């Protein structure tokens, strides 16, 4: 399959993620958008990894093909950790402000 | 390798160990006793090391630990002539300082004495290390405790003063670090005894072999010089000094002025001139001019200073300016003069601070205009101060005379005009010193000085040691000069 399709899909997801982070104020939605971006990158990594594995140049070395996929696992682990910490922060935010609007966060300033 | 315990190792680890013990000491008394005890032991060790200068004792004087597979840095410490003299000065200064100020009480004494000893360890390391990275490490180890000491135990305006000190010295240090890294990248490949090798090395002898073009030397010179010039300090990098001296607790001021300013001069001797001989020669006129301006300038300011501590600070700037100038005259007489004078200046200025601290403790003021007529209230104190002050203006038969004589001679041989103009400083020094003595000690006592009592036996003892040293070296300076001969000859060899 053509790599372009993966690229387009990944780029679309990433852009949706960025725009979501930029325009929404709801912390949970922002959070989901961040995940979206991470996964867009994951998708791209897997796609490229597969592409490389199919090319003749690297057939001899199996290690290369696996590199990007290992990265994906790393990202997933980091994302999971981030989710747990981030959600905890959001819960605390909600408990204190009864809202998940991130603009309330600038109260820390004072 | 490492089968001996060497002098430099002892000199570095012992104060470090003592400092750490001090941090955990519960009582003030315990911390103080530990600090004094260890500094006295260290003095003994350092004094012993003076008798093992011969080349056959190399295993006692140098040690080099390396780490396999690393970037080429080693724990390489050794004592050469200059280092030996300055470690001895450090070892001598600390017990004197601690004893002289032992009556002062500090809040949180365990960390105070701990930090003092840490900075001593740093100083020892600076004077012993033969590895650039190690040198840099100890350089910072010596300075950082001083920031804390000034900012926690200093006078009213301590925060400002410490900040100024920090910005100046840290700025200088970082520039030097850039320089060290650049030179490191140009050192030859290094093979270790265990067969491993590193692409480059931080060791001093590899630094000396670094491939540096004249153009590289020119800008690297200034990176290193920035750090050393701030530390000395040379005009116009000096303004941190009077404020810091004024605001620090006196014992810290003594460390700073007696020992720590020598780090700058030592850096020039050990690193700057040997590493960049071409640049040093090229810029020598510029540096000497700056130093001489500094001498005249600082002496003039000292003339109108009312603050006793700042007066001594400016006088110290003038004296260090002379040492810096004659370092760059780069002949053997001037080098040995500087090495001798580094030691003498340390002793004299510590003595001067002790006396000034006593005056401040007894009267509560440090302004010359408020003091008067101490001489007939405290004759012994006065005699001590007059001797220190006369040593400070290099009267013959005090220790500063042979040092300054050699430095002026060296400077004169380099260029007669430099020698002659710098020598004007000795007139100005006499003017401000005598004026200070007259205002503070002579005349009739006033309301502030009426209650002054003379110093105790213990204080007489401490000051007496300093006075003995002043006269001993003043009458017979040759042993000290001989100690530094090899180092000076080696340095001359690098500049040729």
């Amino acid at each position, binding site marked *: 399959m053509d790599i372009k399709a993966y690229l387009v899909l990944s780029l679309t997801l990433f852009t949706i993620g960025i725009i979501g982070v930029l325009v929404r104020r709801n912390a949970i939605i922002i959070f989901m958008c961040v995940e979206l971006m991470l996964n867009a990158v994951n998708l791209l990594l897997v796609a490229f990894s597969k592409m490389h594995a199919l090319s003749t140049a690297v057939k001899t070395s199996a290690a290369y093909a696996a590199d990007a996929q290992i990265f994906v696992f790393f990202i997933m682990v980091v994302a999971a950790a981030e989710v747990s910490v981030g959600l905890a922060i959001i819960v605390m935010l909600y408990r204190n402000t009864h809202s998940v609007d991130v*603009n309330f966060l600038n109260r820390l*300033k004072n | 390798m490492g089968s001996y315990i060497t002098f430099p190792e002892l000199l570095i680890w012992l104060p470090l160990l003592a400092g750490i013990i001090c941090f955990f000491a519960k009582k003030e008394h315990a911390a103080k006793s530990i600090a004094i005890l260890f500094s006295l032991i260290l003095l003994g060790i350092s004094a012993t090391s003076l008798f093992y200068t011969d080349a056959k004792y190399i295993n006692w004087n140098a040690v080099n630990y390396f780490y396999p597979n690393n970037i080429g840095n080693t724990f390489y410490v050794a004592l050469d002539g200059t280092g030996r003299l300055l470690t001895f000065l450090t070892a001598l200064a600390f017990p004197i300082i601690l004893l002289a100020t032992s009556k002062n009480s500090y809040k949180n004494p365990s960390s105070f004495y701990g930090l003092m000893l840490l900075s001593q360890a740093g100083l020892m390391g600076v004077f012993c290390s033969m590895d650039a990275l190690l040198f840099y490490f100890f350089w910072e180890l010596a300075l950082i405790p001083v920031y804390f000491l000034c900012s926690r135990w200093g006078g009213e305006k301590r925060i400002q003063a410490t900040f100024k000190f920090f910005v100046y010295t840290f700025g200088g240090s970082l520039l030097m670090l850039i320089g060290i890294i650049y030179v490191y990248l140009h050192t030859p490949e290094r093979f270790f005894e265990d067969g491993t090798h590193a692409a480059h090395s931080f060791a001093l002898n590899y630094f000396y072999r670094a491939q540096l073009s004249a153009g590289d030397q020119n800008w690297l010179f200034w990176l290193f010089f920035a750090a050393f010039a701030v530390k000395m300090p040379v005009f*116009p990098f000096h303004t941190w000094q009077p404020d810091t001296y004024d605001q620090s607790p006196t014992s810290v001021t003594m460390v700073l002025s007696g020992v720590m300013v020598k780090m700058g001069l030592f850096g020039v001797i050990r690193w700057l001139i040997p590493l960049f001989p071409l640049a040093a020669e090229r810029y020598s006129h510029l540096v000497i001019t700056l130093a001489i301006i500094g001498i005249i300038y600082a002496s*003039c*300011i000292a003339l109108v200073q009312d603050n006793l501590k700042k007066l001594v600070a400016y006088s110290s700037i003038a004296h260090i300016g002379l040492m810096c100038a004659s370092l760059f005259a780069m002949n*053997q007489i001037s080098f040995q003069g500087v090495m001798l004078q580094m030691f003498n200046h340390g002793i004299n200025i510590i003595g001067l601070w002790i006396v000034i601290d006593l005056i401040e403790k007894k009267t509560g003021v440090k302004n010359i205009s408020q003091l008067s007529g101490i001489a007939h209230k405290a004759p012994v104190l006065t005699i001590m101060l007059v001797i220190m002050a006369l040593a400070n203006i290099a009267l013959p038969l005090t220790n500063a*005379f042979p040092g300054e004589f050699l430095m002026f001679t060296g400077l004169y041989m380099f260029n007669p005009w430099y020698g002659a103009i710098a020598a004007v400083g000795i007139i100005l020094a006499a*003017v401000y010193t005598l004026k200070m003595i007259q205002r503070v000690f002579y005349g009739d006592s006033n309301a502030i000085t009426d209650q002054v009592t003379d110093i105790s036996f213990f204080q007489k003892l401490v000051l007496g040691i300093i006075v003995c040293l002043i006269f001993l070296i003043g009458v017979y300076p040759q042993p000290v*000069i001989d100690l530094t001969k090899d180092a000076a000859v080696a340095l001359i060899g690098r500049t040729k």
Partner: protein
Amino acid sequence: MNNVLQIAWLLPILPLLGFIINGLGRNILSKAISGLVGCLVVFASFLLSVFIFIEVKNGNSQVVHYFDFLNVDLLKIAFAFKFDPLSSLFLLIITGVGFLIHVYSTSYMHGEPDKDFAKYFAYLNLFIFSMLLLVMGANYVVMFIGWEGVGLCSYLLIGYWFRINDYTNAANKAFIMNRIGDLGFLIAVFWLIAKTGTVEFDQVFSAATIAKLSATDITGITLLLFVGATGKSAQIPLYTWLPDAMAGPTPVSALIHAATMVTAGIYMIARSNILYTMAPVTQGVVAMVGLATAVLAATIALKQNDIKKVLAYSTVSQLGYMFLALGVGAYTGAVFHVMTHAFFKALLFLGAGSVIHAMGGEQDMRNMGGLKKYMRTTHLTFLLGCLAIAGIPPFSGFFSKDEILAAAYVHNPVLWVIGVITAVMTAFYMFRLYGMTFLGKFRGSHEQEHHLHESPAAITFPLIILAILAVVGGWIGVPKIFVHGGHRLEAFLEPVFRESNAITTKHEITHATEYMLMGVSVAGALIALIYAWRRYGKYQQIETSPKGITKILENKWYVDEIYNSTIVQPLRSLSGFFNNIIERKGIDGLVNGTGKLVNYGSRQLRWLQSGQVGAYVLLMVLGILILFIIQLFL
């Protein structure tokens, strides 16, 4: 070899020992003990000096090396003493006159508290120690050690009564003016080291004679050394400290500021005579400065009313004479005058001290008068001293002054004329002093008159000895025209000045001329003497404000004021400028300005830290976009 020179190191050590004993024990020693210690060590030194003198006279001159003071690279400076006719003669003067003044001091300073008394003797002993180093040093550095040492002692003793501000000012002035001179001395030493690599007298002088030093070098070195001499020996332009130095106790003025320390400059030039002979330009300068100082100081002395000030200016004037002698190459004459001057000037000062003592501290001559009948010994000895300094034959001053004037005449008759005028003025002001003090009616208060008495034996004994010396001291230098081979001093000093004499061409003057020269100067002095005697013998105080030249003379030509406004004030304003403008506003301003700039910049950047999560993310995305653009398109 077994001779006294082997224990010559004891010579300076003894007074040093006295200094240490008196200095450390000042709180426990009684006056009797500290006075005894002070005198005894100097007397022992004197005895040793006599033995050394005899040894040297027997032709045994040598340099005794003790240890290396500085030994760096090729520079070797030894701690060594040189014993030759010149130094042994000075040793005698210093320890001899020094001992007499120590004895005198035991009585003069008796009113002081115990510990100050001991302190005083400690300082005096330290002075003797330094002066001996100065004279015995076999090189310029050891000489310089003594040179600065005597300056220090002078400072300490001038400021002996340190509670009085004027006195400590005078002490500071003396030290600083000396330091200015010392700078010249030091630079000359550096110059020597740079050119010859040595400072040992013998080596330097041989280097000079074998043309290792160029003419420029010799001229420069000798001029700089002379700068040192102007400081120490109070010559123009550095002479103003000496009259102020009279703030010290009177015996100190006699010892340091008349007999010994101030002649150090003459000693140094006499020691370096070969260098000076080889530098005619310097010799000219030395002669001119000496003569100018002699005249200037003599004019000031004419109108002073303080008894010690008159003597001080007289000292400056006589020192000028000695420099004149050095300048015209009459080294023996200069040393001769140093010796006779040491006798009669010490005598005069001690006599003045005795008067001041009797008058209860009064120093103004206008309040004295008629002391002749109260103080017989003092009066008689003082009169002898006056006659000696006025140059009346056969007193000692006549012979030494005559030798200098004759040498000046040979050199240039104009020098001689001015010299004679100075001599006439000297006779005048000395007998003005004598007349105002000892003749006429007593003008002081009744209380003082009641208190008048002859001083005790400890004071009169040194006066008598010095008076004898002031009378007969000149007889060792009787000119050839009177007694053939009479000038025994010249023969004794001949080895020291041999090489200089070989270089200079001697113009002998006829006996007739020499008699004429003597006749004129003696006649002039006698006329001035008689005029002053008659005029001031019946001195009455008249209240008139001084006018014209008198006012200028009383104010010492306003030299102090000129120095103050041309040197001291500008230096002070320059320092103020450095401190207030450059240091505070300039350098500190720059450093603080950097701090302020960073502070201001940070304050502006703070607005970016708004707390709005959206804004942060936007900036982040923008940043990434910019990086992308740079990476892809640039």
